[in-house]
């Protein structure tokens, strides 16, 4: 019987040939992840079980990311809990400050997240790993604790919704714009309990960095997971990451059968899309930048698991090179991982940002969730490359957040108000992975 890529991965992990949407299956987990907010609670729950050892220390990644560098004594304590647990349990993949970054970009970069895996992360943006063809979903701390003890998790096999992208992305349009548009179409819970499967000829033009943004924001459409069947771009990325990291874990490449069943199919002509911006206070309130009021902004944030990869930083630097942020705007650039920070430094991008009047920080989720390092005050307005513009998300409940891609964010920083990248007067950066 025909199956989707999601069914095939879950069937393999459940040790059967075939699973159906709606079925409850017990899956072996290939990689489990916790961060400094979720892991300490999971560790406490794990202790309650009275189990002395985790099921497999080599399949666990612990990544301090949200409150790093420790913002106060309490957050230092959270990281101490993780650090001591990692030592006690001989968990090698504990990523200390200065050697890690934001988990959702870090784990594929370090070749720990691989195609075909079942990945369970105690963070809602764990759906990001679907960008390389893994089944990956977010859970809470107690579910993670059960996985730490047993290596298994119960999952309801999701129905899949197929998104077929046609055409070629226009100037300044990247994965962020595709997913913001899709969320505006399906709604904030439009894909609840479902897997979003991204396909179609337009994807061949998107870099792996751009694809991670497509799957990263599955959760903002209510989905359980997002997935892109691996192609040559993905496999080249995985191979390069395996070589760079020296980790050569086995992986399997799956694809959906032609006759697989979908709960819905949406076609998107990406050539008709312009850069999108989500106005406060829901991601589904996305619309073309040209249609949005040019509101003045107080802060521009280029960072987060959504848009702080090297491609994102290259786009922002391309616009900001030789220009300065408006004096009324605080511009913050936070690369997603240490390796991306180093790469950006080598390419001179950090210099461009600093000369534009930006502050450039060590990798952290901080500002995205109003945790630290750029919290918004009452009534402040921020254009952010992150994934959530909920009330109070980045600070005070009366602050307002707009979501956009790094080109829109950089242009906004220059003008001090919401801006379209075309207004800057610089030729778009060619990001197409297919030569023109």
């Amino acid at each position, binding site marked *: 019987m025909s199956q989707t890529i999601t069914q095939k991965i879950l069937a393999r992990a*459940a040790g059967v040939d075939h699973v159906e*949407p*709606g*079925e*409850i*299956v*017990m899956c072996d987990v290939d990689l489990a992840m916790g961060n400094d*907010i*979720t892991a*300490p*609670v999971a560790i*406490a*729950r794990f202790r*309650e*079980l*009275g*189990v002395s050892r985790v099921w497999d220390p080599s399949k666990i990644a612990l990544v301090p990311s*949200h409150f790093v560098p420790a*913002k*106060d004594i*309490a957050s230092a304590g*959270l990281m101490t809990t993780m650090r001591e647990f990692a030592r006690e349990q001989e968990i090698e993949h504990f990523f200390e400050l200065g050697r890690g970054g934001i988990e959702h970009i870090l784990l594929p970069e370090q070749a720990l997240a691989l195609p075909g895996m079942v990945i369970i992360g*105690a*963070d*809602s943006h*764990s759906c990001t790993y679907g960008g390389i063809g893994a089944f990956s979903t*977010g*859970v*809470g*701390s*107690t*579910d993670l*604790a*059960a996985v730490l*003890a*047993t290596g*298994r998790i*119960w*999952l*309801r*096999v999701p*129905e899949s919704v197929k998104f077929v992208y046609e055409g070629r992305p226009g100037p300044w349009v990247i994965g962020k714009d595709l997913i913001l548009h899709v969320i505006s179409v399906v709604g*904030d*819970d439009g894909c*609840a*309990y479902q897997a979003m499967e991204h396909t179609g000829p337009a994807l061949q033009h998107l870099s792996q960095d751009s694809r991670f943004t497509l799957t990263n924001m599955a*959760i903002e459409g*209510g989905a*359980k997971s997002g997935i892109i069947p691996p192609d040559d771009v993905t496999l080249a990325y995985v191979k390069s990451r395996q070589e760079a990291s020296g980790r050569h874990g086995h992986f399997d490449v799956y694809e959906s059968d032609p006759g697989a069943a979908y709960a819905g199919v949406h076609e998107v002509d990406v050539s008709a899309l312009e850069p999108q911006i989500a106005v406060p206070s*829901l991601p589904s309130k996305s619309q073309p930048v040209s249609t949005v009021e040019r509101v003045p902004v107080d802060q521009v944030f280029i960072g987060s698991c959504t848009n702080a990869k090297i491609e994102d930083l290259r786009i922002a630097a391309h616009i900001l090179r030789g220009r300065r942020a408006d004096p009324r705007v605080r511009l913050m650039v936070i690369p997603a991982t240490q390796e991306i920070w180093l790469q950006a430094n080598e390419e001179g991008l950090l210099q461009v940002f600093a000369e534009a009047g930006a502050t450039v920080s060590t990798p952290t989720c901080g500002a995205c*969730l*109003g*945790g630290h390092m750029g*919290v918004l005050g009452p009534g402040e307005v921020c254009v952010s490359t992150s994934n*959530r513009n*909920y*009330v*109070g*998300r980045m600070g005070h*409940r009366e602050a307002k957040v707009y979501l956009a891609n790094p080109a829109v964010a950089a242009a906004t920083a220059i003008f001090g108000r919401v801006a379209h990248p075309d207004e800057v007067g610089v030729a778009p950066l060619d990001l197409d992975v297919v030569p023109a």
Partner: protein
Amino acid sequence: MTDVLIEGTAHVYGDNVDTDVIIPARYLTSTEAEELAKHCMEDLDPEFCERCNHGDVIVAGRNFGSGSSREHAPIAIKGSGIACIVAESFARIFYRNSINVGLPIVECPGVTADAEPGDTFRVDLDAGRVENVTRGRTYEATAMPEFMRGILDAGGLMPWVKRQMDDGGEVRVTVAANEPAQADWRLD
């Protein structure tokens, strides 16, 4: 054990109540229910903590608990004394988290239609029935799958897993692994 019959005063909210407003990130350096409860719903309903009494219920619209996977959200709600959440629909991570921490949660389409803050609600978990006593309206809830009910009745996932482990032999996190497909299970 979870009470089968719950009756309480309702706090009523709309759609898309996300976990950032349930418990803002600035309080996530704590993992204690009592501390988290002091800030529950702070960015949506700043007077919630003053108003909330032990045994009250939350009645809400679609996509309750959307966003972040922070388990601190159901922990804060449970710590506030809320006996049950009834919503038109839930975000899936929040749904799992609530069951896992032993917070009763009921999906009930239509429940917000004429609900007003302060209404008395009665929830029968076994019968899958929700009643707005004040308005004289009864609603059919989506039935909770038996094995999830088992987790809830055990007091959450950890006591439930522990019981399975104490029963000896291999750890079986669920007994429902081979149950037939039930596409209407809206739970994960």
